[in-house]
């Protein structure tokens, strides 16, 4: 059974439709990339999957056993407060909150998991730093560590490489690929088509009139894909 099933989903803002009749499935271990033009509804779709925005029609269903508290999310950088007075460790640790329930304080296990994720992303040395003082790439890693604290199953990344330089971008991609190889399902929205095509195994292309959903190879053969790729590459 697929991890996420999306059937005939449409989204609208104040009556204006941004996404129409979309169908797709995400299976465990997939690496799905959502591409498309500006305003095609990529971020809206992510918000829909996360339950931040209700679809106007259709349904988005999670496999039984996948609760909202088991999803990790890396928001667009512009959405977070870059000058926030917070320490790196407390921010990463806040990813563990969703498993705490009503309990007010973090346990030793929570702190260990947070530490493990800092180590996994190679930013243990930032542990005691302040978030506001970090570079864009470092902040990105901190937020990714937080997302990993929140999940071991599904990770949604919204435009993760925007604002990163080419070196950081390729580092970031190999990091995500590694996570994927460890069994975490990845859903990524990206402007960076080249990056998407070298990493993902499934593609959703949101077009103005039609959508595409399929594997990477199918996408290369599809008319939508050919048109989009022909223009970009």
């Amino acid at each position, binding site marked *: 059974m697929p991890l996420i099933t999306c059937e005939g989903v449409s989204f609208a803002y104040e009556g204006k439709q941004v996404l129409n009749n979309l169908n797709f499935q995400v299976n465990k271990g997939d690496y799905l990339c959502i591409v498309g033009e500006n305003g095609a509804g990529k971020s809206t779709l992510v918000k829909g999957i996360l339950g931040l925005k209700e679809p106007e029609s259709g349904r988005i269903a999670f496999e039984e056993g996948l609760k909202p508290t088991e999803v990790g999310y890396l928001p667009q950088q512009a959405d977070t407060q870059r000058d926030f007075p*917070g320490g790196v460790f407390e921010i990463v640790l*806040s990813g563990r909150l969703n498993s705490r329930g009503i309990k007010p304080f973090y346990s030793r296990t929570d702190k260990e998991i947070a530490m493990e994720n800092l180590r996994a992303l190679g930013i243990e040395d930032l542990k005691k730093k302040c978030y506001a003082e970090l570079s864009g790439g470092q902040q990105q890693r901190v937020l990714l560590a937080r997302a990993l604290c*929140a999940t071991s199953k599904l990770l949604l990344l919204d435009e993760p490489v925007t604002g990163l330089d080419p070196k950081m971008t390729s580092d970031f991609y190999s990091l995500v690929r590694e996570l994927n190889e460890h069994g975490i399902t990845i859903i990524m929205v990206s402007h960076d088509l080249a990056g998407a095509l070298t990493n993902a195994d499934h593609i959703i292309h949101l077009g103005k009139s039609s959508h595409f959903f399929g594997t990477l190879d199918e996408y290369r053969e599809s008319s939508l894909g050919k048109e989009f790729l022909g223009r970009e590459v």
Partner: protein
Amino acid sequence: MNTFIEMLQYPFLQRALIVGILISICAALLGVSLVLKRYSMIGDGLSHVGFAALAIAYAFNTAPLMVSIPVCLVAAFFLLRLTENSKIKGDAATALLCSGALAIGVMTISLTQGMNTDVCNYMFGSILAMSREDVYLSVALSIVVMILYGFFYHKLFAVTFDEQFAKATGIKTNWYNMLLALLTSITVVLGMRMMGTLLISSLIVFPALTAMRVCKRFFSVILLSGILSIAEFVSGVYISYVFSTPTGASIVIVDIAVFMIFALYRRLMK
């Protein structure tokens, strides 16, 4: 120092100091979250609503705090929800609420027969406003605010830093926003009679902003904000006692001075 001890001889000043210090702590704690969530104006909006509620409560001879706390809570919840999805944006809604509530309050006072209280007392606060019962209620409620804040500290941190992430990962953010609204309305209503409708939001905004000049971590911002808030309140009351100036205004003047010193310090350190 002698003047300070002399000041403490007066029972009404003792009451004012006890309640004021507790409310200052609450306001400073909540202020950090409110300022970072871009809700700095909420204190102003709520105090105006509180003013209208107080005026109506006096007109009908009911217990003022029992009326104004629930009314403010509704207003606070309404203001916090607005940013999510609405055609009127948060700042515009606050402006509407402020002037609307003020008008209702002033109308009520002017239509009520035999009301001797000066509108000025409401607007700029009075240190004499605290009765013995008020003190008990204020002490109890501010302790509740502090306990709840401590208990939900980590959640409030998460909701302040990144509400979308918290919501997406299954934290009941609406619930915590409501908690923030509840705590803020209690604090505003308790503080507004001493500080005045027009000046209460200074208790929420100044200590938090001042602490953010120098501190880079959430907890240290909160800690410094609380300490500053108490110090500023006590010095304000002291100045007000020595120079016979209105309490609320004296506190705000101290707030401004401390803020400028911290801002200058930060500039020099860079």
